[in-house]
């Protein structure tokens, strides 16, 4: 693989844990050079963030993780003490742009190019305060009007007007703002404004011992709680030299696949609803409800919160539970297949789905699409296949891809992935290793830890950096919605305003997971 041919001047250190990952400290020149090379080799920027390491004498540090040819490369750059700066990556990886803006909002590390408007900072803290700096005086948020003047980019011309939507939306969804510029019903431009649910997660995690942060990590984005708690646990185990027993790894995969199915069932139902087929919403709502009731019966929580913990899994399955789960797979498979037949045959619904909100492969690749959205546009990116940690190395997951990139493709991918996850669940249940489901996770001893899970939206990352001498740490959690939100702005161009809810639902991106 080309990416394994590492930069000769850079000292790469293999990271502990199941991921094929390596870390290096780089200078500004190699930072840019490496990123440029990975870009040409179809690498994906997995996350870009920063931390304040001034107490350890390193100054501010910017971190970037790129996945290239199945290998993970984590590079760190010392950005200086008083006026921290780093060379921007957004010229190479457009998906970095908002992460660079967030980096400035939280730490005051600037990169001097591109969009300098605040991203996560509304008016809770001042433009010269940086909450993730270790010397930030933590207090109550500023009072005053919430967000008086965010400079949206205007579109001018005859007949152009703006539609402002949010932060409170009409349905039961999370808050965010969409600014449409339209002529009649046609969308000329969409600009997203997020950050309304910023709750200072990274600052909170700095203040919690690593062993106790899992409960919070599992509540960053509830629909992906198993993926978040899993990524967090993997990262903590990596810095704690903790070897997780095989049974726990298999049970975790079971939970991740069940979480994927629960969300896909809900999404397909909601897409039917938005497409005008209430029947589909009712039917898939029932299937999801039964699935969640089984979660509560066997795992104690409908959404699997607090099940995955550093060291393993908080519960276990007996033989009766295994049989129940296996039988449920058969039932769900039959039910989903017959519903898919009805939906695929429903001309009215397909008319709404087909060709709507199309993201072609070239665009998706250029803009760094992640996870399910990438796969619906013909890009076969899936950590379970390209970077398989146990048990996925033996389960051999199959990637579902669709070339069309429209709403119909994003519906079809969800069906494909339900079937594949059912197959994986049955394979896991049939070969579940014996032994304990958890071991005690010792105190942290390492410096860097990385965890990653292919959640139902795409890769969820957790990166831990520790300063062992000072007893401090920083945890960065990353949701694939960072990469995919900007794509939504693209795919709605030229579409009709009434199709926006449908297209938006077919993406179903995270707000809280993004805003942190």
């Amino acid at each position: 693989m080309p990416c394994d041919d590492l930069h000769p001047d850079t000292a790469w250190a293999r990271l502990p844990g199941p991921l094929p990952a390596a870390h290096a400290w780089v200078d500004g020149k190699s930072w840019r050079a490496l990123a440029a090379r990975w870009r040409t080799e179809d690498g994906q920027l997995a996350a870009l963030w920063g931390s304040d390491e001034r107490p350890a004498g390193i100054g501010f540090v910017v971190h970037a993780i790129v996945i290239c040819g199945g290998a993970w490369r984590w590079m760190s750059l010392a950005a200086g003490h008083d006026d921290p700066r780093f060379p921007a990556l957004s010229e190479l990886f457009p998906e970095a742009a908002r992460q660079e803006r967030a980096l400035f909002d939280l730490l005051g590390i600037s990169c001097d190019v591109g969009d300098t408007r605040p991203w996560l900072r509304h008016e809770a803290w001042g433009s010269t305060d940086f909450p993730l700096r270790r010397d930030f005086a933590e207090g109550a948020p500023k009072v005053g009007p919430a967000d008086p003047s965010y400079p949206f980019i205007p579109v001018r011309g005859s007949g152009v007007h703006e539609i402002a939507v949010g932060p409170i939306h009409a349905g039961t969804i999370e808050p965010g703002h969409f600014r449409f510029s339209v002529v009649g019903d046609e969308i000329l431009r969409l600009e997203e404004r997020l950050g309304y649910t910023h709750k200072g997660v990274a600052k909170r995690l700095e203040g919690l011992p690593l062993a106790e942060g899992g409960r919070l990590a599992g509540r960053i984005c509830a629909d992906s709680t198993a993926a978040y708690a899993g990524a967090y646990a993997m990262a903590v185990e990596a810095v704690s030299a903790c070897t997780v027993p095989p049974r726990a790894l298999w049970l975790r995969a079971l939970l991740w696949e069940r979480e994927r199915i629960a969300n896909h069932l809900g999404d397909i139902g909601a897409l039917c609803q938005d497409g005008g087929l209430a029947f589909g919403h009712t039917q898939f709502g029932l299937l999801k409800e039964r699935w969640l009731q089984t979660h509560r019966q066997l795992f104690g929580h409908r959404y699997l919160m607090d099940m995955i913990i550093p060291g393993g899994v908080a519960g276990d399955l007996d033989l009766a539970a295994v049989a129940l789960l296996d039988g449920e797979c058969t039932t769900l498979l039959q039910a989903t297949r017959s519903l898919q037949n009805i939906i695929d045959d429903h001309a009215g619904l397909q008319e709404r789905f087909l060709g709507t909100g199309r993201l072609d492969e070239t665009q998706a690749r250029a803009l760094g699409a992640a996870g399910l959205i990438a796969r619906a546009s013909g890009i076969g990116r899936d950590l379970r296949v390209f970077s398989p940690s146990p048990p996925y190395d033996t389960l051999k997951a199959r990637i579902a891809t669709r070339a069309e990139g429209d709403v119909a493709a994003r519906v079809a991918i969800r069906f494909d992935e339900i079937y594949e996850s059912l197959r994986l669940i049955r394979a896991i249940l049939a070969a579940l290793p014996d032994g304990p489901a958890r071991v005690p996770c010792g105190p942290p001893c390492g410096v860097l830890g990385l965890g990653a899970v292919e959640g139902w939206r795409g890769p969820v990352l957790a990166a831990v950096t520790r300063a062992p001498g000072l007893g401090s740490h920083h945890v960065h959690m990353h949701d694939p919605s960072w990469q995919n939100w900007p794509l939504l702005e693209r795919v709605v161009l030229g579409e009709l305003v009434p199709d926006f809810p449908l297209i938006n639902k077919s993406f179903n991106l995270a707000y809280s997971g993004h805003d942190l």
Partner: protein
Amino acid sequence: MHKLLRQILKTGIHPRRPSAHPGPRCGAKASPASLTAELGRSLAVRHVDSGSCNGCELEIQALGNAVYNLAAIGVRLVASPRHADILLVTGPVTRAMADPLRMAYDAIPDPKRVVALGDCACGCGVYTANYATVGAVGCVLPVDLTIPGCPPPPEIIYEAFAALMRP
């Protein structure tokens, strides 16, 4: 079309089963008083997420499924605060959502009630006050009813609303 109708017949009606949930962990206000005398026999509910992790939203959505079917007891989720009797708030209140939340409250005609749903909204969740978070809903609005849980299971939410609807 025949396949669709056959599926509907096959699916049938799903009665709601009584709750087997042990109950919320942190202090719920005791059984809420009926609102029917004041608000009549239907409740229009405007939901606002003031910074939640989306867990409570999942359960509000679940209340609309065929097992709970909250609408059948006269409780409807509405799209505008102008149509609402009740403001249902989830999540801790983030700084960026405090003003929009107040504006939504002000837009609801009197008489009105505020229900805080979930541990964070009730002030006993993982998201306590910090530089970006104002705190529980009670820090911003007068709260009439709290429904704790992380997230509260749909049976608990259903029962709370059913109590408001009892004559």
